Every structure is written in C-alpha cells, then in structure tokens.
C-alpha cells in the first residue's frame, strides 16, 4: 500500500486488499487506478472496479481493506471520505489511510466508517518488522501514539 502510494504521489492512490469471504483476512492486494488522477480526490475507475469485483465474486472474496493516500494532509478520513463511505460504502472494510506528505516517513492509520461516524482502530504490525522500518503505524486509537518501526 505504501509503495503504491509513493509511486502515485503527488496524486492520491487507492486500492483494495481482498480476502476469503467471512474471514476478515487481507490476502490479495489489488492496486486500483485513481480515475480522478488528482492530488486531492480519488475515485475507483468504474470499469476496473467492475472487473475486480467480478473476480472477487468468482473467488468468494470480499473487500477486507479499502485504502487510499493523502498527499498533503494527515492519514485521517476527510469529510468527503466519511460522507461518501457512509452513504454507500463498504461496511465490512477497514478504511486504511496512508499519507505521503513526508518523503521519508509514511503514516498508516486504519478506520471503520459507518453512518457518518469515523472510528480509528489499532494496527499491530506482525510478520517481518524489518520490511516496514520507515513506516509509522498508529496503534492506539484514542491518542494516536505512533509506533515507529
């Protein structure tokens, strides 16, 4: 996700991580095209989204993570992020925000968005910590204390 966000900077990047339905496990990374090609807005390309959705449907997968980047602001859902996601969004998904405003350190935060309410949730890094050395993860939702690996 961070590599994708870096590659598309200064435009916002967006994508998904799909996983087997009902497991909540993010297994398959699907970088998406930002049809808006904008530094301040993102929107899935409608045709590509349909293709990827059909593939997920055929594989009995669901969206586990829906991510996008902010290129100049905090890794926190904007008013329009929350508004659009609440009106018609992906209710089971973790909405992950990556900010690329700092060229050295990417911040990664995760949220649930439903009925206009944004709730931050912790990210705990597992697996190979050396692979994420320059990323900051907010892992306590109340105070947003960054855990810098």
């Amino acid at each position, binding site marked *: 996700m961070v590599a994708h966000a870096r590659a598309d900077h200064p435009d916002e990047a967006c994508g998904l991580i799909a996983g087997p339905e009902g497991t909540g496990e993010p297994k398959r990374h699907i970088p998406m095209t930002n049809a808006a090609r904008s530094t301040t807005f993102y929107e*899935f390309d409608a045709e590509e989204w349909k293709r990827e959705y059909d593939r997920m449907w055929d594989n009995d997968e669901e969206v586990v993570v829906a991510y996008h980047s902010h290129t100049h602001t905090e890794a926190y859902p*904007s008013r329009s992020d929350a508004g659009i996601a609440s009106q018609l969004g992906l209710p089971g998904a973790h909405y992950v925000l990556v900010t690329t405003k700092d060229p050295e350190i990417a911040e990664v935060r995760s949220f649930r968005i439903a009925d206009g309410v944004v709730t931050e949730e912790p990210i705990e890094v597992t697996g190979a910590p050396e692979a994420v050395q320059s990323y900051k993860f907010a892992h306590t939702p109340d105070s947003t204390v960054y855990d810098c690996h």
Partner: protein
Amino acid sequence: MSIEVRIPTILRPHTKNEKVVTGEGETVGELFADLDTRYSGLRARVVTEEGALHRFVNVYINDEDVRFIGGLEAKLADGDSVTILPAVAGGM
C-alpha cells in the same frame, strides 16, 4: 423477462441479506421500481428524489456502466445481469 441483480453488502439489509435477487423491467429505472416493491428502500439508495442515479453509486448492465448507455433509461434484455456497486471515492 428476468434480470439477475447483484447486491453489494451495504444494500443487503434491504434484501434480507440476499446477494443476488431477480427483478423485471424494460429499463434500469423500471427494474429498480420493481425491486422496490419487494425490497423496500432499495431504490432510494440508488435513485435520487429527482429521479437520477446517485453520484456515488455505479450500476452496470453486464459489464457496461449504465451512465454511458442512458442511465436509468438504459434498456434491459432477458438474461441480462445487473450489478450495483458503491463508487469508492473521497477527497481531502
């Protein structure tokens, strides 16, 4: 005339959690009117009070985005598959 409609997770509360429902209609607009008789409230999530598609919903006939083929006036044929998807979008 039977049209299969794939329902996204967020709208499944309207369809008793059915992922796929069937409906009838000559056009996408008629299809949503028909579905609303059995799946109350579904139409209003997709169609505005002014009778247009909501900005942040995508509706496809087979693989085609209906915005490019007439919107709610887009014609349906027996055996078509309609998919409703949230338009995943946002901005700072």
